[in-house]
């Protein structure tokens, strides 16, 4: 099996073709070029012709480079020793630690049987009102952060990871700037979270094929911990780089692109990764938060578009804030009925009023006359943005709900909020008597 082949008959992009026999599909090979050894994976068999994708790229490979087939698929160590460690996309240590050879498991394993999934029920608290109050994050959810390049998405990811009560954090970096990599590492370190984290980092300077491995490496490790009963949070940044790497390979393999150069199986490829998010019956869970940068701020671009069709909602990061309208947590109703009895009412009505505020802002911009009601909305909208939307706000859900009531009470009469009277009686600051007493300025809701 471990026969060495010397005749490379084609080199194109990062794909090489050799003539060889008895090679298992998708298995690994080592390609040695002048002292440097790179891993490669079999991506096509055609009689004796074997095409391999070279992880380190094909640069420097000569037609007589040595190819040694390993006869096994790509694997990663899932031993407890991975915690606190940092690896490259292909699993080599990026820190100074030793190479891990225990508990090796195949990456890209089979799908979870849907019959063994359960309906998710646990909320993940983040301390961010735009998430906790308005679009609650749920354990086992798969949720992307749609973002324009340049937004503070990595800072947001890191913050959620630090606040979330999870057992293990797995970070997969794809095309990460070196600074961002250091930022993640330092943040984990500063919060004492490094010891329960593992990182697979592909930086912008690393070979592009390694980028393709990152989600599978990260998710294989996550899956192994989750089966062992751990609650795992996986952070993937940036999945658009992953999709671009897919595109590059597809082009090399002369596949017919479907949409803006992306391969026809982009949906399937992304879904295979995102669907690893799971709540296991009788074991742990995997929650996936992923960054998807939107080229040209265009949600209909194939990457965010296909992602939106796969994930359970999205957080839309724009202007340094989580936009309340573009964002949606499709699982929020599984949890927000059991937090506090005013949660849903505060959520629905504050958002509705904020939507009204946005309309008023438009009217203002177009020079239409402002009514008394419009002026109330303007006051409300500004406070809402400062207290709820500003990403520097960091308060528990209950405090955020209280702050919501306070904001409403500062700007409106109880009846103008549309909130049911029994909740108003329970939560309106100073009680309803106080509220009705100052009623009488005659403004009505629009």
């Amino acid at each position, binding site marked *: 099996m471990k026969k060495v082949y010397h005749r490379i008959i084609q080199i194109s992009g990062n794909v090489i073709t050799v003539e060889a026999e008895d090679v298992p599909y998708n298995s690994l090979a080592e390609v040695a070029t002048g002292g440097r050894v790179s891993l490669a994976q079999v991506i096509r068999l055609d009689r004796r012709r074997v095409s391999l994708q070279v992880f380190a790229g094909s640069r420097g490979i000569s037609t007589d480079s040595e190819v040694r087939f390993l006869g096994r698929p790509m694997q990663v160590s899932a031993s407890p020793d991975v915690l606190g460690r940092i690896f490259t996309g292909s699993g080599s240590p990026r820190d100074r630690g030793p190479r891990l050879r225990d508990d090796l498991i195949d990456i890209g394993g089979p799908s979870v049987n849907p019959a063994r999934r359960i309906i998710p029920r646990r909320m993940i608290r983040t301390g961010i009102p735009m998430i906790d109050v308005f679009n609650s994050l749920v354990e086992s959810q798969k949720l992307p952060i749609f973002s324009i390049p340049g937004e503070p998405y990595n800072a947001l990811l890191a913050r959620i990871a630090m606040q979330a009560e999870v057992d293990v954090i797995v970070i997969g970096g794809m095309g990460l700037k070196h600074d961002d990599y250091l930022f993640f590492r330092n943040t984990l370190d500063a919060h004492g979270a490094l010891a329960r984290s593992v990182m697979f980092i592909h930086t912008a300077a690393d070979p592009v094929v390694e980028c393709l491995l990152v989600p599978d490496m990260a998710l294989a490790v996550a899956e192994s911990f989750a089966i062992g009963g751990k609650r795992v949070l996986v952070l993937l940044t940036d999945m658009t780089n992953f999709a671009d790497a897919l595109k590059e390979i597809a082009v090399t393999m002369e596949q017919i692109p479907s949409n803006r150069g992306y*391969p*026809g199986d982009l949906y399937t490829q992304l879904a295979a990764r995102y669907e690893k998010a799971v709540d296991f019956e009788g074991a742990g869970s995997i929650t996936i938060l992923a960054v998807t940068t939107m080229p040209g701020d265009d949600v209909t671009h194939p990457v965010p578009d296909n992602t939106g069709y796969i994930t359970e909602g999205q957080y839309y990061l724009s202007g340094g804030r989580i936009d309340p309208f573009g964002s949606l947590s499709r699982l929020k109703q599984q949890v927000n009925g059991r937090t506090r009895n005013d949660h849903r009412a505060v959520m629905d009505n504050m958002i509705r009023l904020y939507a009204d505020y946005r309309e008023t802002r438009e009217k203002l911009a177009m020079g239409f006359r402002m009514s008394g009601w419009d002026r109330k909305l303007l006051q409300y909208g500004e406070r809402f943005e400062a207290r709820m939307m500003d990403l520097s706000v960091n308060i528990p859900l209950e405090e955020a709900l209280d702050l919501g009531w306070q904001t409403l009470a500062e700007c409106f009469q109880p009846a103008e909020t549309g909130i049911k009277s029994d909740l108003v009686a329970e939560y309106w600051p100073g009680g309803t008597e106080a509220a009705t007493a100052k009623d009488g300025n005659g403004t009505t809701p629009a």
Partner: protein
Amino acid sequence: MDDGEHDGTFGMTTERKLGEVVGVNGNMVTVAFDRHVIQNEMAYVVVGETRLKAEVIRVRGEVADLQVFESSAGARVGDKVEFTGELLSVMLGPGLLTQVYDGLQNPLPELARQAGFFLRRGLYVTPLDEARPWEFTPAVKPGDSVCAGAAVGTVPEGIFRHRIMVPFGWPGHWRVTWVAAAGAYPITAAVARVSDGREERAVTMVQRWPVRVPVTAYREKLLPVETLVTQQRIVDTFFPVAKGGTFCTPGPFGAGKTVLQHALSRYSEADVVIVAACGERAGEVVEILREYPELEDPRTGRKLIDRTIIICNTSSMPVAAREASIYTSVTLAEYYRQMGLNVLLLADSTSRWAQALREMSGRLEEIPGEEAFPAYLESLIAGFYERGGLVRLHSGETGSITIGGAVSPAGGNFEEPVTQATLKVVGCFLGLSRDRANARRYPAVHPLDSWSKYPSLSDADDLAFARRILQRGHEVDQMMKVVGEEGTPLADFALYLKSEFLDAVYLQQNTFDAIDGATSAARQKASFRRVVDVLRTPFLFADKDEARSFFQRLRQLFTDANYLPMDGEKYQALDRQTAEFLTAAKKEA
């Protein structure tokens, strides 16, 4: 009978045909063979200890291309391939209802029992319990003449008398030579014997049918005219679906396709519902899986799951099996239609099926059409929806399959091949709009863009009137965006408020509310009448504020009523209150 070539034991050969792998590209395996192969024949690729199911999809000279229904990792050039001589088929018999199958009809709960959390490659399980006895009642006697699809007896399956039928592919007329006495038998036991004069065959409770071939054991296809009540107001009143009709629900992500399909699967007045979760999220199926066994079906008093079959090949399950799952689903639908039942097949999402076709077409290096979909996409989509319809069976009864397909257009743009090909063949288009979804106006079916060719529950004049109000209201709304409220004449403004009123109290419906979520046909007729009465009344208002607060109040009254059971006292009281409010307003006018 134009399908005489399928005899149920489809082309089963005793000789073992073998082949050898010569190429692997993703889930496509190229195989050299020495004898003959059949297009769409099943085969097994033997990879080490496991045998992977595959299907012949192209033959060229000495080699055949097979799509493997599993990951092909580990396959090598030289691996053995066993051809079965049989087309990709499903097993039909009592016990299908309540099941949860993957795209190849493997029962998922049983797979989980054998393999645990993960799907195991190469593990296949018989779709029906072969040991379980069923209480058989004969319906024929020796000497009777029968043909394909005729019932030789029945067994009780939940709420139905499940017919045991002469296999759909047996050609011509047969005489019953023997029938089993009433009693309990397993599905594999012979319950009747029939002869066509040349050969005698045993009828068991189970037959196999090749999924890609439509079942045509019926007399004729009829025009679908009777409304399938879905209890969704915007559907039944504005864009109705007929029993045996076809419809599609295209929409961008998050617009509410799945929520709408789930509502249809719960509330539609169909006998059997087949839910095909095709290439979408596993989590969404889990909701059905866990909740339908608990939810009551008000029409039968039994659990919802008792009339439901789930075909679940979600997005991370093998792509070729996803492609097959659509055909598996429609074949099961045809089977229950043959019993004279009304079947509703809901496929979410047909775009994922089309994408599976595209992936395979790409590997076959076929000349691509638009957006790289294969050129034959349109005819396959047409062929799928054509398997729906209302038919008259040989027995004279009717049975129907209503097909509803979700479509997930790239970028939410309906000008793409799957949406366009689907719109050519369906009878009803429920277009979901991003704007309506963002405004949380659910179900987000667009009231101006959607259409249906089937008859509505409601009065045609009323409907035309309501449509005009919606259209004019929309025009006023557009105009107001430019000239502002101040620049809009009061009469136009009132018209706009009327269209908003209609939208809020009738078109919008809270799917998650037990009462508002399901509006019976009778209730729809009554409440639509009432809404149209309001629309037809020429109210006079002093100014816009008065008009606005009038409609706000009216809207509150109507919405409150939507949340109350119609026979309750509260509803009656509210009804009187509304009537008084309206009379007062008319008097002022």
